[in-house]
């Protein structure tokens, strides 16, 4: 369980990223965060694995205040919280396998990892993760030879290899075309359900959010302005989040899978 208690975050330059956030995210939930650009979605997500550190309040993951963590605890936390990024963040020149296995780094001793020594179980886990996102045949290709959607699937495989309790995804489909976006969201949803991994996703498109989310959190100017099941989202919710009526370009367009 993830719990925000009066969390605020002010960036060094004075920007208020988060304002007095109170939230509870239950185990196994699939939460989608929506909001305008600059609303604080990324900040919210990145504070859950301490890529940014809130300046005020308490943030509990499994009843431990992660804001008090030292760098050792932090690495432990991060092995348990997987993250997926908008630009996939793969090492382009490394092979798919090397990228995926890097999800195990948090569990591996420095020297072993420098020498590239991983156990059979770990290699197998990495390969299975690739199979789960249907991309096992690319295992020894270089990441830069893959299309955007394939790269994002590799990134999901990397997170799976990490065997996390929580997955955070910061606009995982922003760089992808609509069909590929749906594919990636489907995979995220799948691992959420199959492995009961708590999943928090930032999305830009409101219709996609409603299609996949158990629960939607709307943000505006660093504050949570909506929090409820997808079914409760109404026209007025949109106005609250976006400060205006819904428009056609808030929608990603029809769903058509591969």
């Amino acid at each position, binding site marked *: 369980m993830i719990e925000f208690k009066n969390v605020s975050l002010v960036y060094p330059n004075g920007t208020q990223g988060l304002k007095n956030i109170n939230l509870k995210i239950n185990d196994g939930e699939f939460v989608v965060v929506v909001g305008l650009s600059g609303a604080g979605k990324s900040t919210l997500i990145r504070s859950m694995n301490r890529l940014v550190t809130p300046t005020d309040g308490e943030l509990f993951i499994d009843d431990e205040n992660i804001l008090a963590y030292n760098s050792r605890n932090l690495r432990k936390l991060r092995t348990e919280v997987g993250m997926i990024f908008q630009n996939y963040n793969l090492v382009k020149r490394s092979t798919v*396998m090397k990228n995926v296995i890097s999800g195990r780094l948090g569990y591996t001793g420095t020297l072993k990892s420098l020498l590239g020594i991983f156990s*059979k*179980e770990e*290699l*197998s886990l*990495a*390969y*299975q993760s*690739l*199979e789960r996102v249907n991309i*096992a045949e690319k*295992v*020894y290709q270089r990441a830069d030879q893959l299309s955007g959607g394939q790269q994002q699937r590799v990134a999901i495989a990397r997170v799976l290899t990490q065997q996390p309790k929580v997955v955070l995804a910061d606009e995982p489909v922003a760089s992808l075309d609509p069909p590929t976006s749906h594919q990636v969201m489907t995979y995220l949803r799948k691992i959420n359900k199959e492995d009961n991994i708590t999943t928090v996703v930032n999305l830009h498109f409101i219709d996609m959010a409603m299609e996949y989310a158990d629960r939607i959190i709307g943000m505006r100017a660093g504050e949570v302005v909506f929090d409820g099941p997808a079914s409760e989202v109404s026209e007025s919710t949109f106005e609250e989040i976006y400060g205006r009526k819904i428009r056609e370009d808030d929608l990603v367009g029809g769903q058509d899978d591969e």
Partner: protein
Amino acid sequence: MELTMPPKKKRSKSKVIRNILIAIALIALYLWTFLTIEIRWERVFSERTIDNFTRVIPQLFSPDWSAFGKVMGLMWETLQMAYTGTLLAAILAIPFGFFAASNVTKSKVLNTLSKGALDAIRAFPELVLALMFVAAIGPRPFAGVLAIAIGSIGMLGKLYSEVIESIDMNVVEALEANGANKIQVLYYGIIPQIIPEFLSYAIYRFEIDVRASTILGIIGAGGIGTLVTIATQNRNWDEVGMILLVIIVVVTVIDYLSAAIRKRIV
């Protein structure tokens, strides 16, 4: 749990063989290097080394300020040499640059010849060029200037030709469509496109030439290098320290100024 292992990485045979050959070649190269090079370790780790260390190093770090005037005088001469040589090269490299650029010089022969000449010049270390010029006209700054000038033509000519090859040829076509002749096209269409880069490269080369001309005096080609030889032969390490200090400061200042100017140009 049953383990599904990834398939073995497929490698083509020829690639494996190639990699093995490369590895063997590298190992052989290093074996040859380390086995045949004669380093006189007994001298390197001798008492004298320690002696010299304790004598030379402290002196290097306590520069002889009484030599400051003399050192600065020669440094000034070095700067003059570098400036004269670079400017000569910056101008003489222009025809080379044009001849070596395949988009403006259509003659393949001229093209290859000038490219070859530029490559050849770049293969000579400045000091070797200076050696020739000292033998020709005696040990004086002019020998250094010529070495700098010739050496710089090699690099500037190549850079110039690359600049010319990257210009927007559409502009040239537009001027031709206006009825401009070849010289007018050059002056109105090509030169404005290349001047800033040419200048910037020339200034950059000046930076390099200042560094290069500090050593030419070692073979008598003028500048501060002369003093380096004399001071080391006489074991005046505090004077060498002064020379070092002046070179470091002057070169740093020049690098900084040159970078600032170049930033403004392009």
